[in-house]
């Protein structure tokens, strides 16, 4: 039953992804590998769409993944809508439950030494997980690991065009912090078309 599995997987992500939308990314890579519902290159496209549309990134990604997974499973975009809804509800349900429980004693919760301690450990770990997902993204986008290691054409191991574009955009993002990510994604799309990537 794909809906139940989808709900459960996103409930798990909602419960364990700490620190905003990007924190869901490593969990989605894990999901892609363990279920095969979508490919990692589809996931990169989903991140792009989620960053350039309104709404919280994590919610957008859950909707996108749920929609894509169920659409492909049943071969119908119409049933896919239900997949988007189920994944998103699954993602937010742990938040709703946890917040309703702690809303009554907000300050005690904030000052509790176990809560403080747990997040002292989780926060750097969460960034570590995102960093690992970023490395995977680099591998998938920039490197062409050959199937066999005989007759390697070393020039083809690195995708030079995306590498140059990524470096240029990265420097641009660092330099112009005020410019919205959508603008950079737009530049990326145009460059992709112009240089036939």
């Amino acid at each position, binding site marked *: 039953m794909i809906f139940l599995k989808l709900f459960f997987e996103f409930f798990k992500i909602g419960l364990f992804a*700490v620190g905003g939308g990007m924190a869901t990314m490593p969990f989605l890579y894990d999901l892609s590998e363990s279920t095969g519902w979508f490919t990692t290159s589809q996931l990169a*496209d989903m991140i792009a769409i989620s960053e350039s549309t309104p709404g*919280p990134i994590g919610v957008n990604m859950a909707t996108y993944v749920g929609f894509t997974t169920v659409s492909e499973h049943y071969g119908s975009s119409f049933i896919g809508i239900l997949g988007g809804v189920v994944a998103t509800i699954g993602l937010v349900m742990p938040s709703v439950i946890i917040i309703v429980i702690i809303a009554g004693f907000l300050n005690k919760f*904030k000052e509790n030494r176990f809560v403080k301690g747990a997040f002292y450990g989780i926060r750097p770990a969460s960034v570590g997980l995102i960093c690992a997902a970023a490395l995977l993204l680099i591998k998938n986008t920039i490197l062409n690991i050959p199937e066999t290691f005989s007759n390697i054409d070393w020039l083809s191991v690195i995708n030079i065009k995306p590498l140059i574009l990524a470096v240029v955009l990265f420097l641009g*993002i660092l330099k112009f912090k005020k410019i919205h990510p959508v603008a950079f994604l737009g530049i990326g*799309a145009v460059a992709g078309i112009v240089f036939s990537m």
Partner: protein
Amino acid sequence: MKIFWQLFITFAKIGAVTFGGGIAMLPMFKRELVENKDWITENELTDYYAVGQCTPGIIAVNTATFVGYKVKGILGAIVATLGMIFPSLVIIVALAALISNFADLAIVQHAFAGIRACVLALVVSSVITLAKKAVIDKIGVVIFIAVALLSTFLDISPVIFVIITAALGIAINVKKEKSK
């Protein structure tokens, strides 16, 4: 009944016009919830944000749940959260359906190859921003590097890392208090 409708509409509006989530949504929350609707004070909003960042889940959703709960209890919390996610559902489903129809065109594939390079740049830059905020002492550096390496080279679920580092954090915190 009217208050539920207002909760839904207000959060749907915020979800529909803010890009990026998290911190990027804070000014919009302030204008709509503190100034326009007077549902919460600015201090409460700051508190919700602080707690929303250190509870699991999406920060914007956590804040919506807090405000909905304060205004109208559990049902209010649910309605506000549904309002928050409603625009995403509509927009993403429409776009995803559209894109899957054009995915085979060469020009779309070239555009997405360029976009993927940009996503890479954006993700790396957000790792740097997040690390500056979350990796603040020696233990943090060790946890960050260890998790990044282990997660890259071993096939372990992220859930395991979160549980282990939470336990580790509690142990370190308790030990620190004892030695005081």
